[in-house]
């Protein structure tokens, strides 16, 4: 018994030495965090579907201390009555987001009520328990028509789902935001409650658009229980006449100076330097005369000596 006890204690000590104190401390650290696991889905402008999970650890005491979970494997499944179909696996990035984009052509298996059930699963690890969230959404279709009716720019919006017989069913009542695209962000131009899947409004006449007059018109549906997020986009050349940047030339602050400055400077400098050259020429003449005189006197002295 004694030898077993000694051996056991020796082995325990060895294990204790090998186990780095870091990992023990870190396990404590992890314990002081709670995890925020969120999952949403967005149908994007090109009709692809984005599945996004955000996985962030928040310190229990210091709520502002948030650390993203990095390289956590998230599996996305299309759950059906029988089994889960794996749609894709993504690892979280440095911001703690895992994003999977499924193309338009992706087919899903719906349940009886025509809902697509998707779940995002994080398998449990040593330090972190497993997390999963699921959403149940229906596929919705947006249609935005931008037409000039009686010389009034109008936007006609339709939202519908397709039932099992592929017949359009107007979407239920929902709040959407119509925006136009800017360089950094999108500016809302109309907020609407779409009833019976239809909405019409007058497009504002003073939207500038980009340099060529093209405007991107967006429709946003945010966080609907049945449809998730939906974004739809349409481009139209309804931008008002754009003032081209007046590029001022020949000003005090441009690269080329006002013309009169060049002229005045040239005149002044020419005048001054002409005077200098005049003086120097005359100096050379003085020198020449002096030399001639010197030669003449030398010759005279030589002659006198002879």
């Amino acid at each position: 018994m004694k030898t077993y006890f000694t051996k056991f204690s020796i082995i325990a000590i060895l294990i204790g030495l090998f186990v780095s104190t870091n990992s023990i401390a870190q396990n404590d650290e992890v314990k002081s965090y709670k995890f925020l696991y969120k999952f949403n889905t967005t149908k994007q402008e090109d009709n692809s579907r984005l599945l996004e999970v955000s996985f962030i650890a928040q310190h229990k005491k210091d709520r502002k201390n948030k650390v993203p979970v990095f390289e956590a494997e998230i599996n996305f499944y299309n759950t059906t009555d029988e089994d889960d179909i794996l749609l894709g696996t993504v690892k979280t990035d440095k911001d703690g987001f895992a994003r999977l984009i499924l193309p338009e052509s992706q087919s899903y298996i719906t349940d009886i009520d025509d809902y697509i059930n998707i779940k995002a699963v994080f398998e449990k690890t040593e330090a972190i328990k497993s997390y999963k969230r699921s959403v149940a959404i229906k596929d919705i279709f947006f249609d935005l028509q931008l037409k000039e009716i009686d010389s009034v720019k109008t936007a006609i919006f339709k939202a519908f789902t397709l039932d099992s017989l592929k017949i359009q069913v107007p979407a239920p009542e929902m709040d959407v935001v119509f925006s136009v695209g800017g360089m950094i962000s999108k500016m809302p131009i109309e907020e609407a409650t779409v009833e019976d899947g239809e909405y019409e409004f007058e497009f504002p006449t003073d939207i500038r658009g980009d340099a060529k007059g093209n405007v991107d018109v967006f429709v946003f549906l945010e966080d609907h229980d049945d449809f998730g997020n939906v974004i739809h986009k349409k481009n139209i050349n309804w931008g008002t006449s754009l003032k081209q940047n007046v590029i001022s030339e020949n000003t005090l602050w441009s690269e080329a100076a006002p013309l009169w400055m060049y002229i005045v400077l040239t005149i002044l400098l020419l005048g001054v330097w002409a005077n200098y050259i005049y003086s120097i020429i005359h100096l050379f003449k003085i020198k020449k005369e002096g030399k001639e005189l010197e030669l003449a006197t030398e010759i005279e002295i030589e002659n006198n000596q002879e």
Partner: protein
Amino acid sequence: MDVTKRKRELVEEFSPLMSKTTKTSKIWMIFLGIVILVGLYAFVLQFMKGHIVTGMRDNVVWGVYIINFIFFVCLSYSGAFIGGILHFFKTPWKNSVARIVEIITVLSLIIGPIFILLCIGRLDRLHYLFMYPRIQSPITWDIIAIMTDLIGCFIYLYLTFIPDFAILRDNSEKMPKWRQKTYKYLAIGYQDTTSQRERLHKITKTMSVMIIALAIIAYSVLAWIFSLTLQPGWNSSIFAPYFIIAGLYSGVAVIIISMYLIRKFYNLDHYIRKVHFIGAGVILLVMSLLYGYFTFSEYFARWFSHKTHDVNLLDTLFTRYFWEFIFANYIGILVPIVILFFKKFRTIKSITIAAIIAVLGLWLNRYLIVVPTLETPYLPIQDTREEFIHYSATWVEWSLSFAGVAAFILFFILIMKLVPIIPMSGIIDNERNGKNLKEKRTNNSN
């Protein structure tokens, strides 16, 4: 009057001044050399460590260097102006001071730009000023003006030297070989023939007119560096004339001081007489009145119309810089006026004291133009670091200033060893003209 004999006499009179160095002179030169060496050390320190060794910081980015630059350049321009005008006077007494004025012109135009170079952060990129110049910038105008003016003043100075070099060359048997060679080379074969003399007079005359015009334009450009900005205290319409008047005031004062020193240390009482001092003193009086008038106009308008930023500026002037303001604008104006106004007070010594007060007052006036405006910008300086709120020059800046003054004096002394400070050709011309005049009178009376 035998011209050749007279020339020999003059050379004999002036050559000891040039070749001999008295003990006091030696000690003086060594002292100046030491001051310059300290300045060089300070320069190397600034070059290696950057401008952090100066007192300039983010709000007052221009300090003692710019003030010295303006001061020396104003000496130069006023020297050019006075030299040019003196050239048109045919009186005999102008001869004694003409060369002093010319030398001051050229020397201060060499020393002044050295100070502006000290103010530039990246000396290794100086050539960018010539590769990528922007003609809209007042600094570009200033560079062109200073370079043009330097060349012009140099040519003008040389033109006045030529006859004296010729005299020295012809009478230099007793002088060492290197002197003879230098004089021969620099005299460019001037033999004082009538045609040569006439030619020289012609180009000197056109040059002197040009110098006057250049002086006015170039100094206005320097004033525009300040008055073309938006800052309170600088954006004044009379800055260019104000700078020219102040420049003339300080220029005449420095001329008086140098006349006094040269007369004393070189025993030239015969040539630099009381009449010179009285004449210069009268000009100093006129200049001080004008200067006082311009200064008063500047500050009076600001005080009377009491715009907020002008009031802030005047507050700074009257609280933080109170004694400097009093000295520069009251003592610096009133004392010279009092001394020079009354005939009783006009002695050589008192006139020189008036000149010294004027010079100090003007240097302070430049300080009060540059620094307080930068300390009271439109948007208040809200900072806790003392050196970022108020400007105080460090030893580096002061030592470089004194080194500049020392270099000025040293170069002056060295030039006086090359060429006599009283133009010998001028003396001969005066005597010749005087003799001609006498002959004319006797002829007329006959």
